[in-house]
């Protein structure tokens, strides 16, 4: 499952639970230009269950999380920082950059 691999690579790079939250907020903003809450409300999905989101939305998340995980795997051992926030922010910057790239391929 792409999301598990995504969260595993965040952890492997030193990210904590907040890094996951931050990554989800960031990829949702970048891919769909909205918040998670707005995405569920706007598409009529059952709140907080991604398999009820439109198929193309699920696919966008899957592709983005797979590619982000790949990038994070490549970077393992290179991300550091003076505190947890710095580490998380560096991980988030990778996710943001990948999400911007993924966004270019999406039809909306």
């Amino acid at each position, binding site marked *: 499952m792409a999301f598990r691999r995504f969260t595993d690579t965040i952890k492997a790079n030193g990210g904590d639970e*907040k890094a996951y*939250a931050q990554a989800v907020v*960031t990829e949702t903003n970048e891919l769909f230009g909205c918040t*998670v*809450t707005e995405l569920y409300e706007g598409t009529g999905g059952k*709140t*907080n269950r*991604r398999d009820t989101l439109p198929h193309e939305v699920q696919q966008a998340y899957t592709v983005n999380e797979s590619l982000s995980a790949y990038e994070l795997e490549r970077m393992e051992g290179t991300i550091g920082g003076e505190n947890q926030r710095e580490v998380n922010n560096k991980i988030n910057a990778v996710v943001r950059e990948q999400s911007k790239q993924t966004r270019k391929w999406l039809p909306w």
Partner: protein
Amino acid sequence: MSNTTASSVMKLPELKEKVRYTWDILNEWDGAILQPENFAKEMKTFGDRRYKKTWVNALCKFEAMLAYASCLDSWMLLTSTFAFRPERWDYEYRHQIFNEFLMYPKAVEIIKTGLEDIFHKDFDVQEREKADEFFRLLEEREGSAGAIGFSTRFTEQFAGSRTAA
């Protein structure tokens, strides 16, 4: 709720940093913080900023807001967000954070959805075990006067019924 000694008590400067970090995530758009001047305004609503309690209240409120705002998968609340291990920096505030989350009208429904997901027969067993700390949180709440919690007996029954199904 007596088991609060396992983690070290956070000092005020560190607490302030954590509050600001969470607020920044909530107010970030396209890599920039929107209206950073609003942080001070928002903090004033929590009371006198010279007191630690004010910052604790802000932290718990913002952490709950982030838990809600980042909840793409409800089961992640159980296996990550609210799986408070004693070594986590937010462990000492776990009950207040969870109480703040429960203020959301949809909170109970989201938790219920998460429970359904992690007890589904196809859910990864190792991933499910990560929710142990969430169930410990519920156990601590059971019997607390005035606590809004979930009966762990309910979740055990729930798990049993899903397994049997």
